């Protein structure tokens, strides 16, 4: 088991590094994105005229200032079509060095350190998605337990869950938005994201009043996320429970005179949880990546929207940072899944 875990971790680490490197190299190859940022104002407004030569000159200065005049990689193509060693002073090597010091570079769009942007987005996304994941897991447990005790309801409830499962997340979120935060329909919730302005008096502190103020704005996004994860978790757990309840040990437990609910929760559930735990651990990268769609629809400035916008605007440092972060989350989730396996199934622990 230890060796398997190590192998999993190694594979994920390698995969993350490869993916991040690929995105980095793609980003810098022939992209003058940074330069364009410096000249964005010129195209948006009719600025006083500058000649083409001036613009060329200032472009060269910007390239040099940002280190973009260095070669991209250790080897590169020569104009003749061959390959050539370009030395250690290249952009990729510098990026790796920066990375080993914990720096992900600065965003093309805002000039801010990427780590800072990611941290800010995570501060919003994590409470949202973790709350949704916990609520969904609890609801799935309760629902599956209830279904096991009330078999008559199984078919209708399962059908409803499958129906819910066939709605893509954006349809659920959009339906909630257009139904419950729409003056044309029911105007119960605010539609816009976290724009409640903190008072300058308690600046820097996330006071309870701010939390209270932002709570109604989080109800709909969390509901959408719960509704979209609930069916799969419940169906899985329900199927596993039904299977366990037909096993001989349940009959033994029942024969001992245990109550039906006690049988379900003490005995069957523990065994049925195993695949669900794996599912929950799988959720972790998604939790970190945020729910792009929900954040776009409810205009929450979280991880998902940050990555989606970075992709659309080709803000590659942010994108690379996001890929690395999600990859790390995946490492952690693998670790958690293996740990939780050994907790839920003592046989795995003995074998280790």
């Amino acid at each position, binding site marked *: 088991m230890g060796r398997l875990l190590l192998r999993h971790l190694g*594979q994920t680490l390698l*995969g993350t590094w490869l993916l991040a490197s690929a995105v980095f190299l793609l980003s810098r190859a022939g992209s003058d994105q940074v330069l364009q940022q410096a000249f964005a104002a010129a195209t948006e407004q009719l600025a006083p005229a500058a000649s083409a030569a001036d613009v060329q000159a200032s472009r060269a200065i910007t390239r040099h200032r940002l280190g973009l005049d260095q070669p991209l990689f250790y080897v590169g193509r020569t104009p003749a079509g061959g390959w050539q060693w370009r030395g250690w002073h290249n952009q990729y090597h510098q990026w790796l060095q920066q990375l080993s010091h914990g720096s992900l570079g600065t965003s093309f769009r805002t000039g801010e350190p990427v780590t800072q942007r990611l941290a800010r987005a995570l501060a919003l996304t994590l409470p949202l998605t973790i709350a949704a994941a916990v609520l969904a897991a609890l609801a799935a447990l309760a629902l599956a337990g209830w279904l096991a005790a009330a078999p008559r309801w199984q078919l209708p409830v399962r059908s409803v869950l499958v129906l819910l499962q*066939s*709605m893509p997340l954006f349809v659920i979120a959009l339906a909630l938005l*257009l139904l419950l935060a729409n003056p*044309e329909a029911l105007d119960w919730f605010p539609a816009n994201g976290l724009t409640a302005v903190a008072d300058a008096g308690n600046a820097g502190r996330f006071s309870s009043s701010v939390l209270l103020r932002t709570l109604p704005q989080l109800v709909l996004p969390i509901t959408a996320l719960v509704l979209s994860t609930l069916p799969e978790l419940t169906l899985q757990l329900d199927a596993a429970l039904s299977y366990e309840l037909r096993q001989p040990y349940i009959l033994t437990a029942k024969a001992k005179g245990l109550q039906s609910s006690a049988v379900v929760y003490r005995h069957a559930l523990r065994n049925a949880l195993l695949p669900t735990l794996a599912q929950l651990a799988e959720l972790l990268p998604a939790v970190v990546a945020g729910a792009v769609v929900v954040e776009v629809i409810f205009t929450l400035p979280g991880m998902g929207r940050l990555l989606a916008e970075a992709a659309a605007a080709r803000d590659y440092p942010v994108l690379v940072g996001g890929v690395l972060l999600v990859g790390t989350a995946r490492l952690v989730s693998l670790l958690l899944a293996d740990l939780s396996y050994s907790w839920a199934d003592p046989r795995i622990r003995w074998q280790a």
Partner: protein
Amino acid sequence: MASLSAAGLRLGPGQWLALAWLVGLLALATLAPALPLPYPPGTPDLAHMAEGPSSATHHWLGTDALGRDVLSGLVFGARTALFLTLPAALLAALLGGIAGGAAGFWGNRLRLGIGGWVLAVSILAGVLGFSRTMVAVGAGLAAALWASGRLFRRAIALSVPLDSLVLGTATALDTVPRLILVLALVARGGVSALGLGLVLGLTSWASPARQVRARMLAVRALPFIDAARASGLSPVRVWWLHALPHALRPLQTALPLSIAGLLALESTLSFLGVGLPPEAASWGQQLSAARQAPQAWWAFTFPALALAATIFSMHFLSRSRRLSVPSPNR
């Protein structure tokens, strides 16, 4: 087990309904250009922007915020939905089946002769853009080695870590949620319908590959494979003719789910405005226009229903077994 065969042979009324919906959709999608629709898709009617269903204007299901007819959008959206996701799902199943089947069958011990190595290296060189002559020389060398007898080939052979290679690539693909991955790939400029289909297919083969590999590990140990080997068939033929057909079985039930997943992904991408070009009709795109006119319930309800009904039908068909698990009461 009894219910499994029942689901395979006898369909309940629900399943019939789901099947009828899908077949009807397929017919609609195929016949879309020949249908007598009052308005073409993707064309704004500037005199009727975001107007409700009305028989006077012949917009039977209304128009969206950009003045496009909802009905013709639905019909041509069905075309996009099916003709994009079906091939993408098949491509993913094909890639996943072959990669997972090979990984499961040979594990990390595939012995590849020198000829194969030369061929692989020259193909790689071709991809990286080395000169054409070099690639041609490499291919020629490989062919010569191939022709020069079995003994020679076997003598200088190295093992390929095929299993690790496939699993590693699949893990790399799985590291990032698929939506983010596709977003990053598609965001590099506009993408055509064909390009999007390829991207969707190429990023979705990891899950079928895992399923087929797991199944192949079991199939490999079955007696009839040993028998086939003993009869002197080459490993490739044993794999292709005997092992693979059995190992592909999990894909039969997985395919509708895979199509449903891709349909959801495609509509989500179109909703976010990064998928198909704007002139291609798509349910996701129709839904994204619904946000611009929150009072136009018709612009949201009809595409949402079509999308949900289609995905539900596919889930229903592949999950009918689970739904019909006999309850302990009976």
